[in-house]
Structures are given as structure tokens and as C-alpha cells.
């Protein structure tokens, strides 16, 4: 890099820009300590580089930057002056024998000490309060950050299962299963998920004859708390083939004919169930 007794101008430029390797930088630094012409050249280069820096587009300071700086130097000044005050207080007590003539100085010193102590106490209290507030803010931010991290981990984990949920049915639909033996007129009905009824209402089961005759009432029933109900062997005529069965809601004493709508209905399968 170096040629002859001095550092090439190009290398001084690179040195000023911190663009040399560590080894080269060390060599230049060593030479500069001994060589005034190179130091002068470096000073000129630095002037040129300042021009380059000054050529950047100018931007206004961020909002509040000035106030932040003013606050910072104010705080630093306050801390320094407090430290100096404390130091001066310590210096007062030299431990030398006190003379009567200087007794008032002791009182003044004591008063100054008290004032300083009070001032320091207030300052410490204020700083402690500030520290406590900052600590709380930091803890809060840390907690929020931790929670945000956890959320991100869950959302981005490859092993996470993704399931789409939709609104479920409001209530299961009522159903009933009937078993009917026409020859003996035997009928058993088991119903589930029935809605509760008012006291003056009842469910009524109907047998719809296959020959087209009017529906035959096959019993009244009310569901239990779970919505279940059953009708077992109601009095029915024998030998009446059924085409279907139905359930209606009727007044409490029942009805001779079904009242629309038919709440539940089921046709008898042609080949039996």
C-alpha cells in the first residue's frame, strides 16, 4: 500500500472513510503519528469528505427530537450538579477542631446540609417514581411482546390443525320410531327431542289406515324433561293395516281428528322395516 516515505493520497482517502482493512488502517495510523505532511494531507481529505457529507439532501429533525435532547442534557446537568453538591458537603466536614468563632459556619453548613439532603431526597423520590413507572411500562411491554410471540407461534406452527367452525343446529329435530303389528293392533312408539308443550296441549299419535279411512287416534302423550316420550300398546282395532303414522299437537283432552300441521309423519315401508 505504502509507496516510498509517504502514504498515497488514495489510501489516505480510504483511511479517512474507514475503508481500509484492519491491517492497513493500523499501518496508516502508525505512519501518521510520525509524519506531519501525511497528517496535513489527511486533514485536507477530511475537509473534502465533509463536503461530500454536506451534499446530502437535508431533512427536518423528527418531531420531538429537539425536546428530547434538551431533556437529556437537563437531566445530565441536574445529576452532575447534585453530585457536586454532595461532594462539597462531604468536604465541609474536615474533622478539624472547631473554634468558637467559626461556630456559625457549622450551623450554616448544617443548614446547607439539610437543604441539600431535602433536595436530594426529593430528587431521589422523583427518580424512584420515574424508575418505578418505567419498570412497569417495561414489564407491560415485555408481557405484551411475549404474548404476541406466542400468538405468532401458534398461527405459524406447521403442526397446527386448522378447523373451520360453523353455527350448530339450534336444536335437534324431534323424531319418533313406531313399531306396529296390524294383526293384533299392537303399537309401540318411542319419540325423542320433542318440544315441551303448554299445559293445555298434548301430543297425539295417529294411525293412517291403508284403506283410506279416517286417521285413528292412537294415544295421547307428553314428553319428559329430556323431550322423550313413548306410547305402548294403545287400544286399537285389530287387523287394520296402516299406511302411515302421524303425530299432532292437540288440546289437552285430545281430539277425534288430527289438527294440522302434522308434526311428525312416517310412511310404512312396503317391505317392512
Amino acid at each position, binding site marked *: 500500500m505504502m509507496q516510498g516515505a*509517504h502514504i498515497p*493520497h*488514495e*489510501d489516505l*482517502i*480510504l*483511511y*479517512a*472513510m*474507514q*475503508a*481500509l*482493512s484492519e491491517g492497513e*488502517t493500523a499501518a496508516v*495510523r502508525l505512519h*501518521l*503519528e510520525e509524519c*506531519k*505532511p*501525511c*497528517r*496535513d*494531507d*489527511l*486533514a*485536507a*481529505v*477530511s*475537509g*473534502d*469528505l*465533509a*463536503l*461530500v*457529507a*454536506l*451534499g*446530502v*439532501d*437535508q*431533512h*427536518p*429533525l*423528527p418531531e420531538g*427530537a*429537539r425536546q*428530547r*435532547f*434538551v431533556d*437529556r*442534557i*437537563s437531566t*445530565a*446537568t441536574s445529576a*452532575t450538579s447534585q453530585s457536586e453538591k454532595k461532594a462539597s458537603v462531604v468536604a465541609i466536614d474536615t474533622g478539624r477542631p472547631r473554634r468558637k468563632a467559626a461556630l456559625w459556619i457549622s450551623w450554616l453548613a448544617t443548614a446547607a446540609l439539610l437543604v441539600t439532603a431535602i433536595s436530594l431526597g426529593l430528587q431521589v423520590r422523583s427518580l424512584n417514581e420515574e424508575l418505578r413507572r418505567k419498570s412497569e411500562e417495561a414489564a407491560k411491554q415485555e408481557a405484551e411482546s411475549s404474548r404476541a410471540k406466542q400468538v405468532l407461534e401458534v398461527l405459524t406452527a406447521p403442526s397446527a390443525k386448522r378447523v373451520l367452525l360453523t353455527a350448530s343446529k339450534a336444536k335437534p329435530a324431534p323424531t319418533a320410531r313406531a313399531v306396529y303389528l296390524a294383526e293384533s293392533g299392537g303399537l309401540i312408539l318411542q319419540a325423542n327431542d320433542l318440544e315441551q308443550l303448554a299445559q293445555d296441549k298434548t301430543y297425539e299419535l295417529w294411525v293412517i289406515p291403508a284403506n283410506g279411512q279416517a286417521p285413528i287416534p292412537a294415544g295421547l302423550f307428553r314428553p319428559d324433561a329430556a323431550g322423550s316420550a313413548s306410547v305402548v300398546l294403545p287400544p286399537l282395532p285389530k287387523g287394520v293395516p296402516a299406511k302411515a303414522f302421524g303425530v299432532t299437537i292437540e288440546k289437552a283432552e285430545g281430539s277425534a281428528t288430527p289438527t294440522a300441521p302434522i308434526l311428525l309423519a312416517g310412511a310404512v315401508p312396503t317391505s317392512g322395516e
Partner: protein
Amino acid sequence: MQPGWRSIEYGLAATNSRAPLMNEPPSNPGNESPRSIYRDSVHAAGAGDAQAGDELLLSRVKGNDQQAMTDLFDRYGSMVYSVALRVLNDPGQAEDVMQEIFFQIWRNPDSFVQGRGSMGAWLAVMARNRAIDALRRRKPTESVDDVVLASPTNLASEIERNSLMEKVRQVMKDLPSEQQNSVKLAFFEGLTHSEIAARTGDPLGTVKTRIRSALMSLRKAIET
């Protein structure tokens, strides 16, 4: 004194009575080189009030005068921030760099040694160097912070500062694109000459020559 702001008192004389470059004929009264005429003329034209203003403010800062420090901040804060922003391209980091530079001056006003040259120019170089340190996430470098500037230009005057900035911008724009790029990579992106050569594919010597040529062009243009 803060680490990184160590003062090495070499070369101070160069800024008080600018020493000639190695390859420049020594100036002599009545027959000065164009460069020294430029520097002296700028100094004479404005240094008077404004330069004294910087020195006066700095001396008051040494006496813990917050208002003087705030005045310096008002005078150069935007410039320092802009340089740092150009390097870092991040307003938050740029402000950090800017705040730190001024706070160091507040805590240690002697970090700027009078006689090193224009305070504004010194701050501009500091801003660049600190921003590059931040960019590379390294500790502040010491040696290059001991910058001595042979550039007593009047930057304390806002009018003259703006005029100079505009002139520099124009000169930089007029440079060949290869020179502009080399300066950009070295000065604003903090690449070493080897890294620049690797990135551009140019020989090392070419990179150096381009940077030198760019600075020489800039110097000449400003001197005229």
C-alpha cells in the same frame, strides 16, 4: 473523556494555517495557490461572525450553558441528522446517532478541539462515521474520530451553508456515474475498497482512482 472520543493532538497546526498538500507547491504571501485562496477567501468572507459564533457557543458549553448547547443543536442538528439518515436510511437510528453526537459534545466539549477546522464540517464527518459504525454494528472507532479538517469554511452561517450544500449536490450530480457510485459505496454505505471492487467487478486500483478523482473534482469545483 469518553471512549471513542479520545483526542490526539496531532495536526492541529494544519487547520490554523493550512499546510500544503504533499504535491502542492508551498503557498507564499502574494502568490497563493487557488486552493488556499479559496479557503482563505471563504474564511475571510464569513468566518468572522459565524465562525466566532461557533467558538463562542462552544466556550459557553464548556461552562455548562444549556442554552448555548441548544443553539449548537439548532444550528447543526438537522444537518447531522440528514447525514446519518443518508447512511442509515432509518429515521430512528439516525436520530440516535445525532442525539449521541450532540450529547457527547455536551458531556465533553473538548472532543471538538478548536483549530481542527469548521465545527459544522467536523460534525458532518462525525455524523457519517458514527452512522457507518451503527450500520456495521461495531464499536465507535477511535482513530478516525480524531478528525482534523483543513476546511475552515463558514458553515455556521445558514445561508452560506445552504449555498455550499447546493453547490456540492450539483457537483456530485455532474460526476461520472462510476465515480458517483464508488463514492456512494465507500462513503455512504461504508464498504471497504476491496468490497467495492468485488461488488463492481472493477480492479482495486480503479476503485481508488475513481474515489480520488471524485474528491478532486469536488474540491476544484468548490474552490472556483
